C-alpha cells in the first residue's frame, strides 16, 4: 500500500494540485491531514519535513492511482497555505479542522472558522509547542454564536488580507436543529435558514463531543491508542480498531495468522450488519415509524449478544490487539452465528414489509436529496452514500484487506443517489455481509490468535496511511512515527465529516422533513466526526 509521495512547495501547490486533478484525474481527496513537523534543526537532512503543513492523500477513481502530497510552510507566526477546496469540495471542512488545530490559514477558503473548538479558544492545540491546558481554563460562559466568517486572500506583497462574510442575514428565519435534537443522532448542530417549510441554507456546527482523541494519542503508547478507536464511530468499533492494528502491524512488518484475518473479517461483517440494522431502525424512528425502530433493535440485540460472548463488550468491544485478537472465539460463536443468519434473513423481509414497500416511506425517500456521482466523489462521501450515487468506492474491493480477497460478495451500487438508494444500499449490504459470513464461518483456519509482540512497541520512523471500509465509508488512519513508543501524529480520516459536508448541498430547497430523511440516510455518527 506504499504509494508515491510528492513534496510540493506552498507557492506552486495550487498549480500542481490542479494538474493532478485535471491531468492525472485525481478526483478523490481521500484524506487531508494537518501536521506540525517542528522547527528546523541542525542535523536535518534534505528529506526531513519541517514546519506546519498538510498531507493530502489523493486517488483517481478512474485509474485507481494513488498519490500522497505533502506541503509545509516554515512561518509559525502567520502560516498560510492555498486552499484546495475549489478543486475538491470535500476539503472545506478538513481545512477548517487544520486551521482549528494548527492555525494554518487557508487562503481563498470561503469559510475560515474554527470547526471543533470554541470560538474563544486560545492557541492551536495540536502544534507541538502548544499547551492547551495553560491558556484554556474551563470556561463557565456560554459560547456566543457568531454569524460572520472570514475569507483570507494573499495580497500583492505577500501579506494576508481578511474580509468578513455574513453567514445569515438578520431577517432570515434561522432555527437550530441540534445540538440536542432527536434527529441529529448525537450532538451535532445545524443552523438552518428557512423559508416557510423549505430550507434555504444550512450551517454545520461540530465539536460538541470533541474529545481531542488525536491530541491524546500523541502521549499514549500504541496499545493504549487502540482503546480510543472504539469510541470514534461506535457502530464501526470492529472496523476502526482492527484498522489501527493493521496500520501498526504494517509499520512493524508483522503478518497476522490466517485465523486472525478470518476472525477479523467475520467480526467486521457482524459489526456492519449491526450498524446497518441500527441505520434502518434510526431512519424509521426519524421518519416516525417507531414500531420499525424497535424491530431493528430487537434484531440488533442478537448480534450484540454474539459480540459480547466472544469479546466481553457490546458497544466498546475492545477485541483486536496489535498482532492478533484479545481472546479466541467463544465455543458457542459458530453455532450462534449460524442461527443468526436465517433469523436475520427472515426479519429483513419484515423490514421490507413494514417500511421499504410502504407508500409513505417511498414517496418521502425517492427523489429527495439526490447526490450526483461527481459530487459524491468531490465531497469524498464514501460508503453507502457514495455507492448509492453510483460510485463503487468499497475499500474491501479497492484495496482488499484481512480475508476479503478470498470471499465472494457483490458491491452494491445504485445510481439514483437519492435517499431511497442510500437506504437500499444498506439493506442490500446486510445480505452481502451475511453471504461473507456464510462463506467463512465453516472454515475458520486454525492458528495462533496473537503474534508475539515486544512488551513495549516502538514503530520505525516513517508515515503510513491505510484504510478499511467501515460501516459508513472509508475509515483511514494516517500514522507518522519518529521511532518513539507513542505516535508522532495519528490522524483518523473521519467517515462522517464528508457526509456532514454534503448536508448543506443536499438540503438546499428541501423541506425540514427532508433534512431528517437526508440526515438519516447519510448515516453519520457524531463521535467519529468530532473525534
Amino acid at each position, binding site marked *: 500500500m506504499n504509494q508515491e509521495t510528492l513534496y510540493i512547495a506552498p507557492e506552486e501547490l495550487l498549480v500542481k494540485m490542479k494538474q493532478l486533478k485535471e491531468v492525472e484525474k485525481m478526483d478523490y481527496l481521500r484524506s487531508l491531514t494537518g501536521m506540525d513537523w517542528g522547527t528546523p534543526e541542525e542535523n536535518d537532512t534534505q528529506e526531513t519535513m519541517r514546519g506546519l503543513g498538510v498531507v493530502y492523500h489523493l486517488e483517481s477513481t478512474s485509474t485507481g492511482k494513488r498519490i500522497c502530497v505533502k506541503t509545509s510552510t516554515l512561518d509559525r507566526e502567520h502560516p498560510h497555505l492555498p486552499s484546495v477546496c475549489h478543486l475538491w469540495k470535500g476539503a472545506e471542512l478538513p481545512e477548517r479542522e487544520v486551521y482549528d488545530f494548527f492555525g494554518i490559514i487557508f487562503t481563498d477558503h470561503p469559510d475560515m472558522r474554527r470547526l471543533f473548538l470554541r470560538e474563544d479558544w486560545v492557541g492551536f492545540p495540536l502544534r507541538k509547542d502548544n499547551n492547551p491546558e495553560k491558556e484554556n481554563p474551563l470556561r463557565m460562559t456560554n459560547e456566543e454564536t457568531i454569524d460572520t466568517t472570514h475569507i483570507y486572500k494573499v495580497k500583492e506583497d505577500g501579506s494576508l488580507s481578511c474580509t468578513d462574510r455574513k453567514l445569515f442575514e438578520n431577517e432570515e*428565519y434561522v*432555527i437550530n436543529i441540534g445540538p440536542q*435534537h*432527536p*434527529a441529529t443522532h448525537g450532538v451535532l448542530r445545524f443552523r438552518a435558514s*428557512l423559508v416557510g*417549510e423549505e430550507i434555504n441554507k444550512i450551517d454545520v456546527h461540530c465539536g460538541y463531543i470533541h474529545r481531542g482523541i488525536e491530541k491524546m494519542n500523541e502521549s499514549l503508547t500504541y496499545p493504549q491508542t487502540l482503546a480510543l478507536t472504539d469510541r470514534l464511530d461506535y457502530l464501526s468499533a470492529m472496523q476502526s480498531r482492527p484498522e489501527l492494528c493493521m496500520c501498526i502491524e504494517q509499520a512493524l512488518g508483522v503478518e497476522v495468522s490466517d485465523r486472525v484475518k478470518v476472525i477479523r473479517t467475520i467480526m467486521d461483517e457482524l459489526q456492519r450488519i449491526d450498524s446497518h440494522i441500527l441505520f434502518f431502525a434510526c431512519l*424509521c*424512528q*426519524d*421518519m*416516525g*415509524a*417507531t*414500531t*420499525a425502530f*424497535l*424491530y431493528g433493535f*430487537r434484531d440488533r440485540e442478537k448480534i450484540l449478544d454474539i459480540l459480547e460472548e466472544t469479546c466481553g463488550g457490546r458497544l466498546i468491544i475492545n477485541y483486536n490487539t496489535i498482532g492478533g485478537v484479545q481472546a479466541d472465539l467463544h465455543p458457542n460463536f459458530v453455532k450462534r452465528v449460524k442461527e443468526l443468519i436465517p433469523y436475520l434473513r427472515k426479519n429483513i423481509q419484515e423490514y421490507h414489509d*413494514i*417500511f421499504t414497500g*410502504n407508500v*409513505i*416511506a417511498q*414517496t*418521502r425517500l425517492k427523489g429527495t436529496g439526490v447526490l450526483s456521482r461527481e459530487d459524491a466523489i468531490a465531497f469524498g462521501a464514501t460508503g453507502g452514500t457514495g455507492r448509492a450515487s453510483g460510485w463503487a468506492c468499497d475499500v474491501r474491493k479497492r484495496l482488499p484487506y484481512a480475508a476479503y480477497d478470498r470471499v465472494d460478495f457483490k458491491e452494491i451500487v445504485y445510481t439514483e443517489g437519492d435517499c431511497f438508494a442510500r437506504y437500499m444500499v444498506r439493506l442490500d449490504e446486510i445480505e452481502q455481509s451475511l453471504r461473507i459470513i456464510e462463506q467463512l464461518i465453516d472454515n475458520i483456519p486454525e492458528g495462533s490468535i496473537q503474534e508475539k509482540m515486544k512488551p513495549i512497541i516502538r514503530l520505525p520512523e516513517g508515515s503510513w496511511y491505510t484504510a478499511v471500509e467501515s460501516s459508513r465509508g472509508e475509515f483511514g488512519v494516517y500514522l507518522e512515527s519518529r521511532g518513539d513508543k507513542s505516535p508522532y501524529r495519528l490522524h483518523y480520516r473521519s467517515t462522517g465529516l464528508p457526509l456532514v459536508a454534503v448536508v448543506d448541498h443536499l438540503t438546499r430547497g428541501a*423541506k*425540514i*422533513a*427532508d*433534512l*431528517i430523511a437526508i440526515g438519516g440516510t447519510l448515516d453519520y455518527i457524531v463521535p467519529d466526526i468530532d473525534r
Partner: protein
Amino acid sequence: MFDFSIVTNWIHEWLLSLMPEGWAIFVECVAVGIGIILLYALLAIILIYMERKVCAAFQCRLGPTRVGPWGSIQVICDVLKMLTKEIFTPKGVDKKLYNLAPYMILLASFLTFACLPISKGLEVLDFNVGIFFLLAASSIGVVGILLAGWSSNNKFSIIGAMRSGAQIISYELSAGMAILTMVVLAGTMQISDMVSGQSNGWLIFTGHIPALIAFVIYLIAGNAECNRGPFDLPEAESELTAGYHTEYSGMGFGFFYLAEYLNLFIVAAIAATVFLGGWMPLHIPGLDGFNTVMDYIPGFVWYFGKAFFVVFLMMWMRWSFPRLRIDQILALEWKYLVPISMVNLLLMAIIVTLGWHF
C-alpha cells in the same frame, strides 16, 4: 334496552319537589358538568394506558409493568407527577394567549364530548342539528393549537402550529363530508334520532359501499384531526422536537396531552355513533332470539365497546406507518380524500334517492 331517561326524569322530578325549576336546572347542569369532567379524566387515563400497552404489543414490548398490577397505576402516577411539576413560563411569551391556549383546546373537546350519546337517554346535548354542532365545536381546537404555537415565542412551535392549522382545517373538510354522507343516509342530524334509526342495522351495513368508503375516509381524516401518527407532523418529534407544545410544562402540557387522547376518543366515538350504531346493539333482522340476547347487554357497554374498537384501529394505524411530509399530507387530502368523498356523497345521495340501501 334500558332507557336512562327514566332515571334522569326521576332525578328531575325529585329536584323540582325541592326547589324552583330554575334552580333545579342549575343543579342538574352543575352535576352533569362534573360528571362529564370526571368521565373525561377517567377516559383519558384509560386511553393513555391502552395506548401504551397496545403500542408496546405492536413493538414486541411489554409496556408498563411496574406500578400496580400490569402497570395499571402508571398513568395515575404520571398525572400526579405532571400536577406537581413547576409551571414554567419562558421569556418573551405572550402570557395571555400562552395561558389561554390549553383551555381553548380543552373547551373544544369538552363541547364535542358533551354531544356523545353514551347510552339511551344519556345524551347531554341533543338537538335537531346535533351533528352540525359537533362538527363546529370540534373545529375550535385548532384555534388553541395556533394560539399555543404563536404565543410560545419559539420558532419550532410556530412551524408546528402552522402545519397543524393547514392540516386540521384541510382534513375537517373530508371528515365533515364523510359524516354528511351518513347524514344523507340517516335522514336526520339529531344524534339520538340517528342512533335509534340504526336499530335494524348499523349505517355502515345499510349504506354498504359508500358507507364503507366514508368510514375509511373518516378514520383517516379523524386521525389527522387529532394530530396522531402518521399525521403527527405538527409535533413531529424528530423534526420539531414537540411542535406547538414545546414550551409548555406541567399541566399546561398535560392539557394538550389530555385533549389529544380525548380527541382520539371523540373521533372514535363519533365513528361509533354515525357508522356503527352508537349504543344500539347488533341486530340481525330475522334472528329474534339473537337480537333479544344482544338487547340484554347495556347500551353504554355497546357504545364504549365500539368506540374502543375504533380507537384500537386508529392505534394500529398510528404504530404501523411512518410520518407523512407536509406537502404529502395536503396532497392526500386535496387530491384524494376530498374528491373521493365528494363523489361518495353524490353516490350516497343517488343510492338514497333510488332506495338501493338496506
